[in-house]
């Protein structure tokens, strides 16, 4: 589980990047469980129905809880409304951003685009930049020096991970990033994954976000009230915990630099409320292996391929309990990781090597 390793360089233009490209880890061929084409075609089918239903519920809950905040402002009764609104705004927007970014939530393209842009705004994410960073995340999942979305790097910064639940660090990063981008400045790392023809669009998108934030601040000052800011912007702080709780589990503590999502990605069984907030992204191995399958079909896909996947964690609590000692050990030995055991019914990692072994043994 450990090996004589070198310090990881998580920059996207550094030593690890060069090594990933040279060793063929970048843009590699990844393992996929065999699924018959006709079955996969059925699973991939798009439909507007489930996402329209969920989006109507989502928007109604957002507006209802916002009304509760305004109505009960200044009273203790405001707390449960803040709790609900915060999670809907600061957490469930992440899964909407994600699924609509993939274009799989709705069949109709413009519906995906509208929800994608609204959710990007709620998350303080540049919709252009993050579309490209997420494409890279799918190409090079947890490949050090390539993946732009590795949330917990090794050795893990546990204080930073804990603070992530408050949204403070992300807020501190996201807002200045949008300001910088709105001023027309993209970093070298951003330029490494955003094609040149798209970079201008990233600046325009950041500018629009800033216009809305400035307008919100102006309204708050004009009204002499915090309410506009509590409804727009600040939920990114007080409502982000659910997104972090579920999102961290996607890859934390698992192998890096492997080309098999079964080993670097985690599926966790969750309660129905969390699954609504997270839009079934708890089936994360399945999502990474087959990103074409819409969120509402992931439970069916899971049933179909689970014989080939590690045993899912039965709960969020179980997953954190399992990974905690691994993180502690990584503080001293950053090469240490949680090895996902494949069931006897699964094909092994890099099965082509095993096939070579079998053939060689048979020849002897």
């Amino acid at each position, binding site marked *: 589980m450990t090996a004589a390793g070198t310090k990881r360089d998580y920059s996207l233009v550094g030593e690890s990047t060069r090594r990933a490209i040279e060793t063929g880890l970048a843009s590699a061929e990844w393992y996929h469980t065999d699924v018959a084409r006709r079955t996969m075609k059925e699973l991939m*089918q*798009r439909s507007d129905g489930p996402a329209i239903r969920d989006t109507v519920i989502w928007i109604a809950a957002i507006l209802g809880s916002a009304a509760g905040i305004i109505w009960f402002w200044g009273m203790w009764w405001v707390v449960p409304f803040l709790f609900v609104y915060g999670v809907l705004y600061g957490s469930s927007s992440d899964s909407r951003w994600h699924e609509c970014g993939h274009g799989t939530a709705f069949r109709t393209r413009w519906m995906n685009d509208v929800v994608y842009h609204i959710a990007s705004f709620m998350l303080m994410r540049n919709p*252009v930049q993050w579309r490209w960073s997420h494409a890279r995340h799918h190409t090079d999942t947890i490949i050090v020096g390539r993946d732009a979305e590795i949330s917990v790097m090794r050795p893990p910064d546990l204080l930073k991970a804990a603070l992530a639940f408050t949204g403070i660090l992300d807020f501190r990063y996201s807002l200045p990033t949008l300001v910088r981008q709105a001023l027309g400045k993209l970093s070298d790392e951003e330029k490494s994954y955003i094609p040149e023809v798209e970079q201008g669009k990233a600046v325009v998108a950041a500018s629009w976000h800033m216009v809305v934030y400035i307008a919100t601040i102006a309204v708050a000052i004009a009204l002499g009230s915090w309410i506009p800011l509590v409804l727009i912007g600040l939920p990114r702080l007080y409502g982000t915990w659910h997104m972090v709780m579920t999102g961290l589990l996607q890859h934390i503590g698992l192998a890096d630099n492997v080309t098999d999502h079964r080993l670097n990605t985690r599926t966790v069984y969750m309660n129905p409320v969390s699954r609504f907030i997270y839009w079934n992204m708890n089936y994360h191995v399945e999502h990474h292996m087959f*990103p*074409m399958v819409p969120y509402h079909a992931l439970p069916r896909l899971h049933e179909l391929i689970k014989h080939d996947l590690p045993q899912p964690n039965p709960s969020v609590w179980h997953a954190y309990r399992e990974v905690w000692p691994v993180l502690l050990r990584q503080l001293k030995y950053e090469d240490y990781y949680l090895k996902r055991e494949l069931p006897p019914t699964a094909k092994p990692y890099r099965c082509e090597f095993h096939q070579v072994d079998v053939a060689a043994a048979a020849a002897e």
Partner: protein
Amino acid sequence: MADWVEACAVDDVDEEDVIRFDHGGRSFAIYRSPDDEFFATDGFCTHEKAHLADGLVMDDIIECPKHNGRFNYKTGQAKGAPVCVDLKTYPVKVEDGKVMIDIG
């Protein structure tokens, strides 16, 4: 100069679906549209190396299986991020139940 080659039988491709066809070291995608017409494009996505035959055909769109990039498979037009470069398309004809493409 035209160079027609037999890609597959008509029945090899389901309606609103796509299959892979390899020939002479090149790879192609052969489509059957919902209105029962055949089309052909380069096999690999112009964004990254993923074969479009594993993707999803919806009306006149092929969606790449890796990053969900979309192309119009009739014209090859890239429909937006993460695909920015159009797909090359090839003339197709059907003769005696065979799908022929001009790879010249």
